[in-house]
């Protein structure tokens, strides 16, 4: 097993958002600013990696029939830990991400990797798989978030990047719901186009 490949596959080739279309709900909801995108991405990566580790460690102890509920308990525990820690130490981001922090537990990426990889592989590859997929997720979020923040507010990470005239009157729809959907659709189409060309 090529460990490096396990780590990097989540970035482009099997990017959870753009290629596998998983984890769509948080993707559209938190990408109105790059700061939120990074916050969510890192939180999800933490949960994904930790749950991958635990599940890989106990995979032989869990009867197959109840494996899904057991995975869910493990994932939900790490989500709660992230929720409490963020509330205590990064309250601003915790407030911005709001409902979507506990919703990490139903992020299909995490349950998907637990079922497809961590329950069938050893700990080290599982760590790399988790980290890789999580970072790929974060990458996708940051890309979408950048487009939306630059177009919708003329800023990137809160810093002005567009001429003042644009900032006075930006394309607001990009940070609102419709813009999220449309930008996502166009991005996916673009990626499909690029892949076809290869």
């Amino acid at each position, binding site marked *: 097993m090529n460990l490096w490949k396990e780590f990097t596959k989540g970035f482009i080739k099997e990017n959870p958002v753009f290629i596998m279309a998983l984890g769509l709900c948080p993707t559209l909801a938190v990408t109105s600013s790059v700061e939120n995108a990074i916050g969510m991405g890192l939180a999800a990566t933490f949960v994904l990696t930790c749950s991958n580790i635990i599940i890989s460690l106990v995979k032989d102890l*869990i009867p197959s029939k109840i494996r899904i509920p057991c995975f869910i308990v*493990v994932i939900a*525990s790490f989500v709660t830990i992230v929720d409490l820690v963020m*509330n*205590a130490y990064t*309250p601003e981001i915790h407030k911005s991400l709001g409902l979507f922090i506990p919703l990490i537990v139903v992020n299909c990426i995490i349950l998907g990797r637990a079922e497809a990889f961590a329950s069938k592989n050893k700990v080290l590859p599982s760590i790399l798989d988790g980290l890789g997929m999580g970072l790929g997720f974060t990458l996708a979020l940051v890309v979408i978030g950048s487009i939306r923040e630059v177009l*919708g507010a003329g800023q990137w990470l809160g810093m002005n990047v567009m001429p003042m005239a644009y900032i006075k009157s930006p394309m607001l729809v990009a*940070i*609102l719901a419709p813009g999220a959907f449309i930008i996502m659709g166009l991005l996916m189409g673009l990626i499909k186009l690029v892949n076809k060309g290869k």
Partner: protein
Amino acid sequence: MKYFIKLGLVLLLITAIASGILAYVNGITADKIKGNKVLAEQEARKEVLSDASRFEQRTVTLPAVAEEPNPLKNKAEEGPRQFMYYLGYDKDDQLSGYTFVASLYGYSSEVKTMVGVNLDMTISKIKVIEQSETPGLGANASTAEFQGRFLSMNQEQLKVDKDGGAIKSLTGATITSRAVTNSIADGMKILADAVSGEDK
């Protein structure tokens, strides 16, 4: 049957271990979380009344308003409605002003503003501390530019320009502007009554 019991026990065991770990994490973070909220409000207070170094809380009971309770929501607070404000004392322990939180539903969310009031009942500074209005429109209520429009205003001037007052409302966000302005005006009226009552 025995098989199902075994399954149930495994799940129960995992859940119990998880709950234990979470109880531990909750224990270490609970106080910090509570503290954060208090700290945030304290900082907002200091920001709107910059020369105050010490604050004292006062509560006034408001006359009961015949409000129809929402049958679909839990009763939020029991007991009579209360208005809370703070007296600000500077480093020489002289009274320098007051602060209170103004709150009103705007366009799509409750808008909460921390208001600092000078002794002559004009505004020293305001800070919008909570809102979820439309980004780019009503959400601009949190900008320094909008908040600056309230400096030195007294209670009579506190209406948006559309209603004949002195506050220029945000472009395309009259409702949000009105919510902020009117909530502050209401609060200042109650504050003025409370303060004069205290002097007596």
